[in-house]
C-alpha cells in the first residue's frame, strides 16, 4: 500500500495532461437533445416483464449451445449458456429462434424465461465507508481473475466485447486503463444519467478495475458537455481516494469510439500489423499496446459484483428521439422486449409512421420488430419521424469524407472499390479499420450511403475470407491425405522389397549352406569310401 500511495502522490502532483486531438470528426449539435432536458428525472426502474428472451449469441454473433432444458427452473445469475446468465428467477418455457436486435431483423436461438412473481426487487446499491469499501475491493482483487466469469461482464458501450477477455488478452500487462465516459452521439445519455445518479458506485468500480488490472495509470475521459456529471464523479473519486485522474475531452463525434478515445487520451494511433501485405494486414488491438478501454457502465456493474455478487443482468437505456413522448433513462433487465420498455414508460408509438431505432442516430438502425429484447449492447432506443430518403447523386470526389474520417481512410475510393466488389483493393485501403461512425455519410454532398456500403463490403469480405480459409483447410486436408496415401504406398512397397531382399539373401545363404553341406557330405562319403 505504501508504494501505491507514493505513486499516487506523484500522479496527482502531475498536472492533468491536455487531451490529444484526432483527425476529422464532427462537431454535432447536441442542443436539441431530448435527454439533456430530462436528465433531472434520474434513472427509472422498470418492472420485470412476465417473459424474458435471452438470445444465445456471443460477441462474434455466433450461436452458442444452451446449458439448460425446457421446464428447468433457473435462478437469477445462473449460467444458462457459456458466457450468458439468466437475468431473473424463473422457468425456461421454450428454447426457439426469436427476433433480436439486428439491422437485418434476423432471428436467433433464444432461451425464453417465464419470470416468477416472487422475484426480488433490485435494491439500490449500498455505499459502504471508504475503509470498508477498500477492504472489500482488496479481498475481491485477491481472488483469481477467472471468478469474474460469473459476472458475465461485457462492455456496455454498444459493442458488447467481453471484459474479462479484454483484460486477459493484455499479455504484457496493462499500463493504461481508460474509463470511457464520453458519449459522443446526440440522444444517448445513459452514461451521463448513471454518473449523476450513482457516482460512488462508479468510483468504487473503477478502483476495483485499477486493482484488478494492476495498471500504472487510470484515466477517466469525460466530454466537456457534461460538467455536472464530471463534478459528481470527481467528488466521489476524492471521497474514496480512487487512483484515477479525470480528463476533460472536447465534445466531438466520435470521441467515444475506442480507437479515437485511445488517440485522444494517449496520443497513440493503433498501428497496423503486417502493414506491407494487403492480405494479412490487420489492426492491432489496444490490449497488445497495454491499453484497456472500459465503459463507465461496466465499472458500475463490476461494483455490483463486488458488493453483492450480482452478475451483469441489467443496464441503463436512454429513450429519446424527436417522437418519444416521455424521454427518460430507464434501468432495464436484459431480455425485456422493446415494446414492454416503451409501454411501461408510456412511449408506445401512437402512429404507424414512427420509426423505432436501436442505438444512436448514427450508430443505430431501425428495428424490424418491437418484440426484440434489450441486450447489453442496447444503449439507446429512439423514436423518430418517418424517413424521407434523399436519392444519392454521383460522387464528385470532393474529398470531404476523407477530411472527416477519424481513422484516416479514403471513403470515396473505398466506396468505388466496394461497389465493384474489389475486395483486395478494399483491404489495401484498410476497409477493416473503418469504425462505421457515419461521419462520411453526414458530410457527403451527394448523400451517398457510404457506411452502408462499407458494412456490406466488410461482411462480404469476412464471409469470403472464411470461405477461403475453409477452402484452404480442405485443400490442406486433401494434400495431407494424398501425402499419407503416397507414404503408405511407399511404405508398403518398401516392406515388400525388404521382405523380398530378405528372402533372397536368406535363399542365397541357404543355397551356399546346402552346397557346403552337400560338399561336406560328399567329402565325408569319399573319406568313408576311402577308408
Amino acid at each position: 500500500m505504501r508504494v501505491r500511495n507514493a505513486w499516487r502522490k506523484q500522479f496527482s502532483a502531475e498536472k492533468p495532461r491536455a487531451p490529444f486531438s484526432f483527425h476529422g470528426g464532427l462537431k454535432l449539435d447536441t442542443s436539441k437533445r431530448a435527454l439533456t432536458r430530462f436528465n433531472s428525472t434520474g434513472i427509472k426502474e422498470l418492472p420485470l416483464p412476465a417473459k424474458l428472451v435471452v438470445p444465445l449469441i456471443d460477441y462474434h454473433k455466433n450461436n452458442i449451445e444452451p446449458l439448460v432444458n425446457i421446464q428447468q427452473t433457473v435462478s437469477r445469475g445462473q449460467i444458462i449458456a457459456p458466457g450468458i446468465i439468466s437475468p431473473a428467477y424463473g422457468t425456461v418455457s421454450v428454447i426457439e429462434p426469436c427476433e433480436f436486435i439486428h439491422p437485418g431483423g434476423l432471428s436467433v436461438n433464444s432461451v425464453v424465461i417465464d419470470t416468477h412473481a416472487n422475484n426480488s426487487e433490485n435494491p439500490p446499491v449500498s455505499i459502504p465507508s471508504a475503509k470498508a469499501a477498500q477492504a472489500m475491493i482488496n479481498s475481491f482483487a485477491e481472488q483469481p481473475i477467472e471468478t469474474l466469469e460469473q459476472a458475465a461482464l461485457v462492455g456496455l458501450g454498444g459493442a458488447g466485447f467481453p471484459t474479462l477477455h479484454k483484460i486477459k488478452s493484455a499479455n504484457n500487462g496493462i499500463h493504461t486503463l481508460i474509463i470511457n465516459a464520453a458519449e459522443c452521439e446526440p440522444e444517448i445519455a445513459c452514461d451521463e444519467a448513471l454518473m449523476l445518479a450513482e457516482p460512488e458506485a462508479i468510483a468504487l468500480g473503477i478502483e476495483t478495475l485499477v486493482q484488478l488490472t494492476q495498471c500504472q495509470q487510470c484515466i477517466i475521459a469525460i466530454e466537456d458537455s457534461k460538467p455536472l456529471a464530471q463534478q459528481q464523479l470527481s467528488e466521489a473519486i476524492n471521497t474514496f481516494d480512487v487512483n484515477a485522474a479525470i480528463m476533460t475531452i472536447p465534445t466531438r463525434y466520435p470521441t467515444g469510439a475506442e480507437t479515437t478515445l485511445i488517440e485522444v487520451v494517449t496520443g497513440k494511433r493503433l498501428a497496423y500489423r503486417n502493414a506491407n501485405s494487403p492480405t494479412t494486414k490487420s489492426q492491432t488491438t489496444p490490449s497488445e499496446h497495454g491499453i484497456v478501454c472500459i465503459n463507465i457502465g461496466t465499472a458500475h456493474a463490476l461494483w455490483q459484483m463486488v458488493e453483492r455478487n450480482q452478475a451483469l443482468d441489467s443496464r441503463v437505456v436512454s429513450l429519446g428521439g424527436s417522437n418519444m413522448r416521455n424521454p427518460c433513462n430507464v434501468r432495464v433487465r436484459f431480455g425485456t422486449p422493446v415494446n414492454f420498455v416503451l409501454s411501461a414508460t408510456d412511449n408506445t408509438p401512437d402512429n404507424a409512421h414512427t420509426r423505432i431505432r436501436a442505438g444512436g442516430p448514427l450508430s443505430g438502425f431501425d428495428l424490424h420488430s418491437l418484440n426484440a429484447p434489450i441486450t447489453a449492447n442496447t444503449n439507446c432506443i429512439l423514436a423518430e419521424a418517418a424517413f424521407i430518403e434523399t436519392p444519392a447523386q454521383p460522387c464528385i470526389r470532393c474529398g470531404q469524407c476523407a477530411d472527416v474520417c477519424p481513422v484516416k481512410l479514403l471513403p470515396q475510393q473505398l466506396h468505388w472499390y466496394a461497389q465493384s466488389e474489389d475486395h483486395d483493393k478494399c483491404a489495401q485501403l484498410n476497409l477493416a479499420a473503418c469504425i462505421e461512425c457515419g461521419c462520411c455519410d453526414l458530410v457527403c454532398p451527394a448523400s451517398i450511403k457510404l457506411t452502408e456500403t462499407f458494412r456490406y463490403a466488410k461482411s462480404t469480405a469476412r464471409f469470403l475470407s472464411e470461405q477461403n480459409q475453409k477452402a484452404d483447410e480442405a485443400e490442406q486436408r486433401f494434400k495431407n491425405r494424398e501425402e499419407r496415401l503416397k507414404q503408405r504406398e511407399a511404405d508398403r512397397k518398401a516392406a515388400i522389397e525388404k521382405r523380398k531382399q530378405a528372402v533372397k539373401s536368406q535363399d542365397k545363404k541357404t543355397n551356399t549352406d546346402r552346397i557346403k553341406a552337400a560338399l561336406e557330405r560328399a567329402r565325408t562319403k569319399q573319406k568313408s569310401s576311402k577308408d
Partner: protein
Amino acid sequence: MLKPILDTQAVSLKTLNTQHIMLWVLAALLPGVFVYAWFISPLVFFNIALAAVLAVVFEALALYWRGQAIHGGVQDGSIVVAAVLLALAVPPLLPFWQLAVGVFIMVMLGKQVYGGLGNNPFNPAMVGYAALLVSFPQTMTLWSAPDLLNQLTLGHLLNAKLSLDLLNPNLLIDWDGITRATPLEHLRTLKMQGLSVDQNLAQQQFISSGWVWTNLAFLLGGLLLLYRRIIQWHIPASVILSFALCSLLFSAQNVPWYLSVFSGALMLGAFFIATDPVTAASSNRGRLVFGAGIGALCFIIREFGGYPEGFAFAVLLMNLCVPLIDHIDMHWGTSA
C-alpha cells in the same frame, strides 16, 4: 417501410450538397467575371449566357438519350459551372456558333460519353476549349483590345459575333485596328523574332492590359472558396508555386515571375479549373503532385510549346496521369 442504418435526419448538422457547392463556385467567379468584362470585353456576359443555356439544353438532351432522370442530372449545376469556365477561357469575340460547337463537345465528349457527373476523366471545359483551339486557331487567338474598342459600338461587335464568318469583309471591321495580341502572345512573337524584351516595357504592358487585375480578381474568388472550404489549398498552391518556381529558374523572357503568375489564365485555372475534384487526384499528397505537374507543364507549353497559353493542355495531360498518381499514392500508404 424503409430501414435506414444511418439516420441523417436525426442529427443536426449543416452540410452542403452538390448544388450548393456549384452555386458557391459560381458566386466566387463573379468578381473575376466583372473585372474581365471591365478590362477585356463586356461580351463575356453574352458568351456566359449563351454557353450556360446551351450546356443545360445539351445536358438535358444527353440525359434523355441515356434514359436518365433529366431534372436530377441538370439541377446539380455542375454543367453550368463548366459552361461558365469555357466561356471565360475563349476569346470574347469568338463567333457564337463556334462557342456552341465547343459547348456541345464539352457536354457530349467531355462529360456524358463517360457516364455523366463523377465519371469523366478529363475536365469537360478544357476538353471543349482544346477542341476549339485546334479546330479554329484563327478566331481562338483573336483578342480584342479594350482600349481600342471605343471606335465601335458594342452592338456592332455583337453583330459581328453573330455572323458566321468573323473575318467577312462585309462586316466593315478593321480587325487589325481593334485587336491586339495578349501580352503572352506579344512576348511569344518577340521571342520568335529573336528580340529581347525590355523589362519595364513588359511590366507596363502586362499591367495596362488588364490581365493582371483579372487574375487578381480570380485569386480573390479562389480565396473565398478556400475560406468556405469548398476547395482545399493543395492544388492551387502547388500549381502556383511550381509555375512560379519554373519561371524563376528557367524563364528566358525578361518578365519577372510575379507578373507571369498573374498572366494568362493562371489564377482562373489554379483555383477553378484544376480544382475540379472529379478529375483531380484523390488524396492530398496526390493533389500536390497533380498541381505541381500542371504548373510545370503550363510553364513548359508557354515557354517552348506552340501555343501562347498552355493551361488547358497542362490540365488535360495531368488528368491523364491521375489514375497513375492515385495508384502510386495508394501503394505508398494511405495517409491523407
